């Protein structure tokens, strides 16, 4: 019985049906938001922060918009009617003889496989990777 073609066909049908149901059941999407680690950089100008912010957002998400001076936001590009699964912002502000940059990230899970915290970590790394024309003086955390 177990090896008959009918039994195999029935088994295949049940398995395929279960698989189809699994694939078609929509997992509810949830918003995830995170605050990235602050970067404090000494002996650098605001323009250095802006350059790094722009480069980091472009490399990780999409070409960003400068909402206001020193306020950068990027939203992942998708074709309508699809909706963007990830967005992030970087704020630059003067701090002593340098600047501080802050990071905020938001993702929709699913479809994003990456958490907001991971997105912010990636942005932070990209921000550090963009070398300043005067050398890198970035340090994580609070003020120097």
């Amino acid at each position, binding site marked *: 019985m177990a090896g008959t073609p009918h039994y195999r066909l029935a088994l295949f049908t049940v398995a395929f049906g279960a698989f189809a149901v699994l694939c*078609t059941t929509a997992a509810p*999407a949830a918003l995830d938001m995170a605050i990235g680690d602050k970067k404090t950089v000494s002996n650098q100008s605001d323009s250095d922060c802006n350059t790094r912010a722009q480069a980091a957002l472009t490399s990780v998400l999409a070409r960003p918009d400068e909402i206001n001076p020193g306020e950068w936001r990027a939203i992942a590009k998708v074709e309508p009617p*699809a*909706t963007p*699964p990830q967005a992030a912002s970087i704020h630059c502000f003067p701090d002593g003889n340098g600047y501080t940059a802050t990071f905020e990230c938001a993702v*929709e899970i699913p479809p994003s496989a990456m958490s907001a915290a991971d997105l912010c970590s990636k942005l932070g790394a990209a921000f550090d990777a963009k070398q300043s024309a005067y050398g890198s003086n970035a340090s994580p955390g609070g003020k120097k």
Partner: protein
Amino acid sequence: MIAKRRVVTGIALAALVFAIAAPARAGVDMNTGIRYVYNLGSIADCGVKAKAALNAYLQNATEKTPGSGEWLAYAKPTNGQNTAAAVIQCGTAGKGYFVTFTCAVQKPGNSFDADALCLNIAHNFSGKTVTTLATPTPVPSGCSTTNLVGTWVSDSNSKLVLTMDTEGGLSDPDGVSGNWYLVGTTVTLTYYGNKTLTLSADGKHMSGSGASYTRKC
């Protein structure tokens, strides 16, 4: 040889099911840009106001680490899931502090957007006039040619009823979700793949891409 064919057929069927069945998802709407600078005050002062402003529109505002001035709060979950959140960052500026606001809202799925959320949180923080965030719009009655909000029954299967909401989302009785999009009389349904249909002049029917629905109105 036969076994190889079965494997190939199985993989092809699995890929096909996955391709046509992936439902549309909600996306992220983000707002940032409002920044205040106060000439006097501490990070702690900022934190007190940040927590109050966040909790006025969201709930359970928490500071990333005590004293950091980095505050995050989520809205009350919808069906167990977070759909809106905001961050307020306080930083030292001379003898005072600066504060920035960043908001994220799931769209579709919320009756307000990230701009409205951030504007109100910022105004609450600064003591300016605030407004009440929009609540879900009641489902309009009657047939409309400007939106698809309401329930639609498949002409080929009366048990297949699509419920379309004011935010451009849709769902069926099995809980499969998707999206609707209407430009003129051209309907884009993202439901088991993208389908293009045409809405009738009276707003009661739409058909195309092998599907046909009638609106309950």
